[in-house]
């Protein structure tokens, strides 16, 4: 199988790129949430809830990509 190496390469690069995207997204989200809770400590609970939900959505998209890379790596 001559193209097996390329598949693994693609899977590795894809996993890394997905993590960059997800990390940037969640990092941006967390920094905004920290800032918001610093400005308004009363709304801490609401901010945390909406932060977790948004983080889950970002993480979900990232995990789609990771599942695809795992499928690629197992081909």
């Amino acid at each position: 199988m001559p193209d097996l190496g390329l598949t693994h390469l693609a899977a590795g690069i894809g996993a890394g790129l997905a993590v960059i995207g997800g990390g940037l997204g969640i990092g941006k989200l967390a920094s905004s949430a920290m800032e918001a809770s610093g400005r308004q400590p009363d709304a801490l609970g609401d901010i945390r809830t909406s932060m977790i939900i948004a983080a889950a959505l970002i993480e979900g998209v990232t995990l789609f990509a990771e599942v695809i890379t795992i499928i690629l790596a197992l081909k």
Partner: protein
Amino acid sequence: MIFDPGFVGASNLIAANAGSTAPDTVMSAAASSSSASNGTWIIEHVADSHILEFKPFGEIHLPQFPPVHIGGMTIDFSLTKHIVMIWFAVLLLLIFVQAAMRSYRKDRAGKKPLVPHGLANALEVVVVFVRDDIVLGAIGEKGKRLLPYFLTLFFFVLFSNFVGLIPYTSTPTGNINVTAALAIIAFFVIQISGIVDHGFVGYFRGLMPPHIPLFVIPVMVIVEILGLFTKPFALCVRLFANMSAGHIVIFSLIGLIFIFHSIFIAPISIAFAVFISLLEILVGLIQAYIFTMLTALFVGLAIHQH
């Protein structure tokens, strides 16, 4: 009961059974490349199988049943590792809830206790959290009739996530069939609660935003109908990927010892594996919360359309 390898192939006949194809690819991958160091053993641990392993004490071959033909489909009702783990999780949950409920029963004098004590306190905190923060917060007063569903969902996902942390067990929610079943139930709960509230025609008409130009409507119909299905699909894949990813990372870290053939790697990789295992406790809790929260949000969106 004797394990019959002939039925392993039969389980792959199930059309919608995505998880059962994983062992198949593992087998073919192992056959094509004879080296054992390509990580297939990790997938073997995460994937479903017909054997319960208790290394080094031996293994249990689960009873197998011949596949059943219903219409055009062939369905295999054989027991697998993850089914046994679901039963284990449900059993733990039943024991836990029954033990907690004892504090609400009448004592010998026939009086109900005024204040719950012991386990009931721990359970009550979680139940009140699910009721007030998740269901009432996302749906409102109308969510009260759906509260039993959300409590069942939350506790089932929570215990299923945590069962995988016990040695010799595996995570049932790390199997995409389990999460797909949960997502299908969530799909019907979302649609039916919307239809009950708005009527069949009213619900589907309400999916469209009001006052949009006429030429956008064909596009919007497609997008909205797709949106109905992508929400539960995302729920399904999110839980599956989160729960299997943690276990793959733990196995990979332990596998580093065998890749480097060195005992000096062991302290580092064990330390990281313990750290990831602790992280898994957090992830299991957060994923149960998120699955319930997002289902509640989608039900809330279906009930309050504008």
